[in-house]
């Protein structure tokens, strides 16, 4: 009789929570987006970077410079330029590169294809190994297994990915000749070759994720095991396995999940050195090269994609966390 309205209320509350999280993310996204893009735009205007310098070199005549700048629309008022760029972005257009006139959306797409492949595999490896090691360490807390895992996590967390990368190339590509040492083949040309090309850089990048996730999960689980509700569940006669999966894991995995969410954007964008070692033309390298060349439209594009990526991932993690531990949404 009364069950229906209660069920409806509950469903509505669940949906409401997701919507609130969504609204909060959008609320954060909009100002961050505007401030970040506006600042880069303003920096361009102030630094005097211009396509004319890139194309004509240092000793170009003022007329030639003016010509090129008006071709690019740079002689128009600042806010007009910003508005034009902004409306283009809403249509998915980031404009063309000052350096080579290529379409920036296409360039970013290519770079993202490479970087996302590597980052996703790295994240999967990092999450699986990290969650596994963290769980084992927490269940065997205080024993030599726990100490060995904690030690291992510390060791691999201080090894920079480029060093790991070089060692992996030495062992698997040069020494054992099992895997290619570099380059990239898109998954359309076969999953096998694609995986063979991305697995080593992904492994190199995953070490850091493994270490962080394992440590966060271990800490989270150990402190969850100290909570009274574990004792409560024990007294009600629930089995240790059920207590772990239903009660401890659920409350202890929040920080580890948040770590995974924070790691992903940096795996995509901040792996320039690793991309160099493995000869990958990824998103990180594209960002780096564009910034060094003073290619402002490309940098703007990179910025927008990065902001979207970070905000989207935070949103996803917040929704998952909201479902796993509802109390965390209230700041309890």
């Amino acid at each position, binding site marked *: 009789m009364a069950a229906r309205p209660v069920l409806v209320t509950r469903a509505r509350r669940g949906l409401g929570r997701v919507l609130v999280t969504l609204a909060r993310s959008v609320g954060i996204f909009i100002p961050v987006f505007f401030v970040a893009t506006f600042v880069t735009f303003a920096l361009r205007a102030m630094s005097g970077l211009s396509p004319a310098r890139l194309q004509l070199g240092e000793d170009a005549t003022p007329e030639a410079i003016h010509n090129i700048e008006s071709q690019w629309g740079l002689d128009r008022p600042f806010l007009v330029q910003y508005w034009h760029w902004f409306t283009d972005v809403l249509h998915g257009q980031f404009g063309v590169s000052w350096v080579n006139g290529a379409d920036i959306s296409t360039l970013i797409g290519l770079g993202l294809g490479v970087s996302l492949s590597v980052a996703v595999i790295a994240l999967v490896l990092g999450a699986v190994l990290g969650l596994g090691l963290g769980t084992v360490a927490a269940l065997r807390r205080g024993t030599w297994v726990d100490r060995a895992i904690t030690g291992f996590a510390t060791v691999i967390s201080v090894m920079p990915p480029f060093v790991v990368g070089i060692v992996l190339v030495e062992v698997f590509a040069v020494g054992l000749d099992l895997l290619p040492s570099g380059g990239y083949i898109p998954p359309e040309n076969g999953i096998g070759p694609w995986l063979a090309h991305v697995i080593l850089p992904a492994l190199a990048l995953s070490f850091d994720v493994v270490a962080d996730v394992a440590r966060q999960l271990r800490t989270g689980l150990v402190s969850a095991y100290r909570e009274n509700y574990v004792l409560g569940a024990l007294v*009600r006669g629930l089995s240790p396995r059920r207590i772990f999966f*239903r009660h401890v894991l659920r409350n202890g995995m929040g920080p580890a999940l948040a770590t995974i969410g924070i790691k992903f954007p940096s795996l995509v964008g901040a792996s320039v050195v690793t991309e160099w070692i493995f000869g990958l033309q990824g998103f990180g390298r594209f960002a780096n090269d564009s910034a060094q060349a003073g290619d402002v439209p490309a940098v703007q594009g990179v910025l927008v994609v990065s902001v979207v990526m970070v905000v989207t991932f935070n949103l996803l993690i917040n929704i998952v966390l909201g479902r796993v531990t509802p109390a965390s949404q209230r700041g309890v």
Partner: protein
Amino acid sequence: MTTLTESPTTTTADPVLSVHDVRIRSQVDDREIVKGVSFELTPGKVVGIVGESGSGKTLTCRAVLGILPPHFEVSAGAIHVAGEDITALTPARLTAMRGSTISAVFQDPASYLNPSIQVGAQIAEVIRVKKGLKRRAARQRAIELLTAVHLRDPELVYGQYTYELSGGMLQRVLIAAAIAADPQVLIADEATTALDVTVQAEILDLLADLRDNAGLALVVVSHDLAVVAQLCDEVLVMREGEVVEQGPTDRVLYQPEHEYTRLLISEHEQYGLEKFLSREGR
């Protein structure tokens, strides 16, 4: 009306819980923390344990439940729950016994429920695991239990989280979860301590209700003599791990033999409200 511990011949039914000269030792400093506790409990009866904090009340209860903290062990004596020696049971048998034969509720009920799961679902979980009911039937049964512990609007409470409920409501939920698998013995360890006086009285009424209607045997642990006086047939007074006085509630309260019991009672008289009221009336 009460069962004397050392004379099983007077019992009308088999004891559901019998604790015989239990001693608990700390392995860290090799000290005996609980020095010989004995009592027997038959269905529908209530044993009270009073004493100051640190007197070994809670450790005794945890020994009975088989959940002594690390580095503590039962060094001597025997604990039988429904005829089985719990110190000899395998962990799996202990798990099977907890909840369905013996269960417990504690002080600070909010902390003994999972903050991330709806409280009703936690009761339903016990029913599904211990009684093998299907999801829907377990939910129905959980709502019946919430009604049985006198919660208004049980349907609504079912879907709420611990942070949405008051202390008194949470204690009712905790009791519902504890009795979900129909145990014969319920240990209430300071179950009313953190609650305000009116709620405390309601919870005590509820426990008395369960004793009368479900034939539940209760172990009531408290530092408050008033709680014990209201509910218990037999009282154990503990101090520094020793039982200094044990006997029928009326006898212990009206003719205390040990000076510590007298101290507890006189403190109650000295600081209790009755004293204050009688002084005012004079």
